[in-house]
């Protein structure tokens, strides 16, 4: 269990031990293990369909694991865990949703409580502070449905952070964002991880924008995972073992590309979306 050595120092924010998930007889996750320390920025990288969303849902307690354990701050994960903030994939906010950015952020604080909120200076002050922390002051009073994708991400991050979690999970926050907005969100998250001492676990199918900020990477392929510092995990031999066939890791103009190579060198197949970024 490793509990003895963990109790010596601060417990890890997240310990995933041997998690497997099978849905309808198909193995989605196969013996996935990794840990995340306090304030660490971790990228959950893998091609589409590798099981990234399923893994995040297991950590959140929204999906039951067939085997394995998940511990948050050294404790077995409970149903509602205020230590975890979550930004789901593709939250569709309609333009006719009668809700301002600040209203959505406020629901991050007490959305699970019954009854109606009483107007409180403390509540609105906390919301204002959080909006400021994610550079969302400008559009605090705009309808969330009318904001751009990047602006909505900021509001959703504020929504997830206002309950002061120790771990922030984000599911493909960069999909649907243009390059510049994506970069802005990444640097915002890196800043928050440090300043607010929140560990970040962010899933993405494209790792290159994350390379400068990632403390470690959890690479997921075919339901199996390898974790560690990026330069140790993103290696041809490690990834080939995960994928179950030979892949090459190429460095092109400071970018890392994972390419499925064929044994006889007949040419390369681009397996992951990030290979398309080469140009």
């Amino acid at each position, binding site marked *: 269990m490793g509990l003895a050595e963990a109790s010596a120092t601060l417990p890890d924010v997240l310990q995933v031990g041997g998690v497997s998930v099978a849905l309808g007889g198909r193995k989605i996750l196969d013996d996935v293990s990794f840990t995340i320390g306090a304030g660490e920025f971790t990228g959950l990288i893998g091609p589409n369909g590798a099981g990234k969303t399923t893994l995040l849902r297991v950590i*959140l307690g929204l999906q039951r694991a067939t085997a394995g354990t998940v511990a948050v701050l050294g404790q077995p994960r409970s149903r509602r865990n205020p230590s975890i903030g979550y930004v789901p994939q*593709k939250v569709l906010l*309609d333009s*006719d*949703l009668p*809700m301002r950015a600040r209203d959505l952020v406020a629901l991050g604080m007490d959305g699970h409580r*019954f*009854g*109606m909120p009483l107007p409180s200076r403390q509540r609105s002050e906390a919301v204002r502070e959080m909006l400021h922390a994610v550079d969302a002051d400008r559009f605090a009073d705009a309808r969330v449905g009318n904001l751009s994708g990047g602006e909505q991400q900021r509001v*959703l991050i504020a929504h997830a952070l206002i309950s002061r979690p120790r771990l922030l999970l984000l599911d493909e926050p960069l999909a649907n964002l243009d390059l510049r907005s994506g970069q802005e969100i990444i640097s915002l998250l890196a800043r928050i991880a440090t300043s607010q001492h929140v560990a970040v676990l962010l899933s993405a199918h494209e790792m290159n924008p994350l390379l400068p900020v990632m403390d470690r990477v959890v690479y997921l392929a075919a339901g199996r995972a390898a974790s560690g510092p990026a330069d140790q995990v993103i290696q041809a031999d490690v990834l080939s073992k995960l994928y179950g066939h030979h892949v090459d890791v190429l460095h092109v103009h400071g970018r890392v590309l994972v390419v499925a190579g064929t044994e006889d060198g007949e040419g390369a197949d681009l397996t992951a979306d990030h290979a398309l970024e080469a140009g």
Partner: protein
Amino acid sequence: MHQLWTWVFEPGFFSSAPVRVAAVTGGVAAVVSAVTGVFTVMRGQSFGGHALGDVSAAGGSGALLVGLNPLLGFVGLGIIGAGVMDTIGVRRVRGRDLATGIVLGAAIGLSALFLYLTSVSGATTGAPAQILFGSIFTITSATIPAVVILSVIAVASIAAVWRPLLLSSVSPDLAAARGVPVRLVGLLYMLALAVSVGLSSLAVGAILSTALLIGPAATALRLTRTVGWALAVACLLGAGATWLGILLAYDSYYWSAAHQGLPVSFFIVAVIFAGYLFSGFPAARAAAGRRDAAVPPPASPAHEKIAA
């Protein structure tokens, strides 16, 4: 001045007992419908609301057949229908579509049977029109306490789960991650919806209850930025349209020489529809302003909201 007054309010309007009972029950039904309607529109469940109206029709006609108060049938069968729809699966968009279609079809079939049997037994003439399209002037004051109690129950249920309901209406994923019992909250909302549809079935008829549920709420969502304001505006619009409809229907008795009054439900629904159309002007201007500011409005139909 006096002439204008009597032109607007034909003689006897304020002293008429049926008008007073209609104004109270109609107003209360409109307010409850507006409150639940705001969430119905946000959750993209208008079709589900309409199906509950058809279930109410079956309940109302069944109650009439066995000699019970139609309100009992409207609300009673509506609650059962809401439970069935939740069981079949109103949470997922596809399941919701399915649940709605199945329940709606069965309910209309039952209504056809009950209304046929009622008309054959000859106990009540005009039963189909009364159940399907309402007859607010025939409500007796004895019904008012039941109407008020049911309204309080429906509004209190919504208020009790206000924040979890709001969050799960925005995104079930966000709500579930916060530990909100999304399914339970959804079921409670469906029950409140069933009660409100039952009340508006009494006021404007089971078929037209959708208009009272969706119209004022959809109009309010066009005009406001927060849920609180949307609720307030929807309540005002719903009650206003109901009262204006009652007045117009009362006055219509004097419009023709034959003194043939026109149905209240028609006027209420007409006012609601006109309000929705007019609210399009400021909304369209706001949308044009947004386009000028080069913010592309994400165009996604409301019913796809929960899809992701």
